[in-house]
């Protein structure tokens, strides 16, 4: 047996060692680093009711929900509908809306401009609305808390809304549910939703008239940043040749038990700055343009609350 020349063996071994120590690309002349990454899946856990019931109530008759009464609502859901976020991340919520109807019933969008007090055809304008709430995992299932809250919902406060018709459409607005605490929905992580709307009061409605709405919710990671309160500026239009300043008036609105101090910033200090004028915080114009004032409160609950207002400066 012929023994391999030691020099050749050493060369081969050295070449092998060099090949093994080189990272991808394997035959690069310079040293390189292998960066490894892995994807950690996000465990999405939400509680969404699969079914609900609604009432077409042309005369707006009182509807009892436990001890609470809903009156004057021509379209209403007959029980509170709740979404809970039990995920470890905040979730942005979107909704796709569609429906079917029984024969003779028409679902119209707001743009139809029907006068539902005089219309005699079986026409409905049904609106999906979703609302933020201060509920948590415990109160979200407590009917004594839930029902009065549900009965008092106001369409003006809807975070998400959209017309429900036989043509699929997306709700508009912004709704973010706060991340859960140890797998349970915490305050800011629960939303209420309902159907609202109008019905032709003078139509000859029958018990067989009905519609079925499908609300398809989609959840994706979002940034939970609830409102810090309201700006109450005397004006949002300043002028370099006229009124160039206005007192900064801001009213914090934090959840019960949460405290924090607002910090104000301008998106463009070349346009407006917040300055002290004789002891009063004042928004002062410096040049024509548009800027956004932001109030940020880091709440004692660890949540960052923000509110904004746009200000325009004319030359």
């Amino acid at each position: 047996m012929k023994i391999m020349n030691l020099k050749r063996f050493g060369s081969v071994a050295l070449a092998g060692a060099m090949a093994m120590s080189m990272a991808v690309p394997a035959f690069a002349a310079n040293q390189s680093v292998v960066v490894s990454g892995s994807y950690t899946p996000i465990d999405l856990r939400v509680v969404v009711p699969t079914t609900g019931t609604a009432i077409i109530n042309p005369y707006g008759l009182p509807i009892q929900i436990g001890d609470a009464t809903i009156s004057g609502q021509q379209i209403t859901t007959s029980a509170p509908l709740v979404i809970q976020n039990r995920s470890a991340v905040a979730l942005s919520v979107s909704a796709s809306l569609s429906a079917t109807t029984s024969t003779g019933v028409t679902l119209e969008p707001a743009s139809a401009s029907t006068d539902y007090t005089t219309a005699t055809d079986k026409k409905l304008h049904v609106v999906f609305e979703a609302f933020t709430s201060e509920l948590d995992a415990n109160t979200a299932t407590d009917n004594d808390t839930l029902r009065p809250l549900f009965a008092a919902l106001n369409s003006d406060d809807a975070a998400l809304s959209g017309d429900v018709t036989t043509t699929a459409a997306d709700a508009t607005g912004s709704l973010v549910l706060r991340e859960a605490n140890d797998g349970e929905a915490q305050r800011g992580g629960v939303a209420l939703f309902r159907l609202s709307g109008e019905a032709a009061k003078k139509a000859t409605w029958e018990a067989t008239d009905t519609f079925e709405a499908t609300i398809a919710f989609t959840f994706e990671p979002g940034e939970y940043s609830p409102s810090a309160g309201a700006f109450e500026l005397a004006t949002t239009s300043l002028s370099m040749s006229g009124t160039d300043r206005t007192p900064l008036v801001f009213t914090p609105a934090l959840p019960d038990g949460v405290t924090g101090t607002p910090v104000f910033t301008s998106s463009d200090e070349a346009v407006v700055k917040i300055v002290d004028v004789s002891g009063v915080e004042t928004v002062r114009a410096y040049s024509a343009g548009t800027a956004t004032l932001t109030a940020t409160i880091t709440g004692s609950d660890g949540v960052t609350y923000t509110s904004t207002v746009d200000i325009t400066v004319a030359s």
Partner: protein
Amino acid sequence: MNRKRLFCAVLALVLLFSAQPATAAAELWDTYSTTITASCKVPTIKVTVPSTGQVYLNPLKLTVFINGESTSDQIISAPCCIANESDIPITVDVTVTGAVNEGSDMTLVASSTQDSESTDKSAFIYFEMQSADTDDPNDVTWDSEYDSSKHIIVDTSAAGQSKENILTLSAITPEGAVAAGGYGAFRLAGDAVETPANVWTSQDGISVEVAFTFTPLSYI
């Protein structure tokens, strides 16, 4: 070592370091649906209405006993009552149409005869309705005199006289009983010329048709 085998080993090691880990990403954009089924709340109206009533002409103001109560009114009617047995409150519209009995020469006038010096055989009659808590119309406090905003004059016009939303009747109780405020007591009242030129006879009289229309109370 065989060169080919060493080369393959090295190549395998290189390939190993160049491979990317394959993972299955979780489906974050899951869709959750809620199906909401709507039903129509159609109110059922059910009202008990008496089919007949009685009215007496008493121009001479004689004392008369009606349902155990004495009165000397010139126009006397035994009060009647309707009852709302619906599960919703209702509003009541009323149309009254009068007719003078055949053979009578009396007339129905549009204003009280008490301040008139007329000697025509005439009567001023109006329909009055009040809310009641029970089906005993005698528990009602009637108005002391004619009120045009609340009462309906009885005349002989073909269309009669009407008043909308004369009363609202409460819905039945959760137990299904007629509620307080769910009764509507009504009567005819008025006055007449006491001593007309043509004296009152047994042929004198009227019939009054009272038509009720019930509408669910709208909260809109």
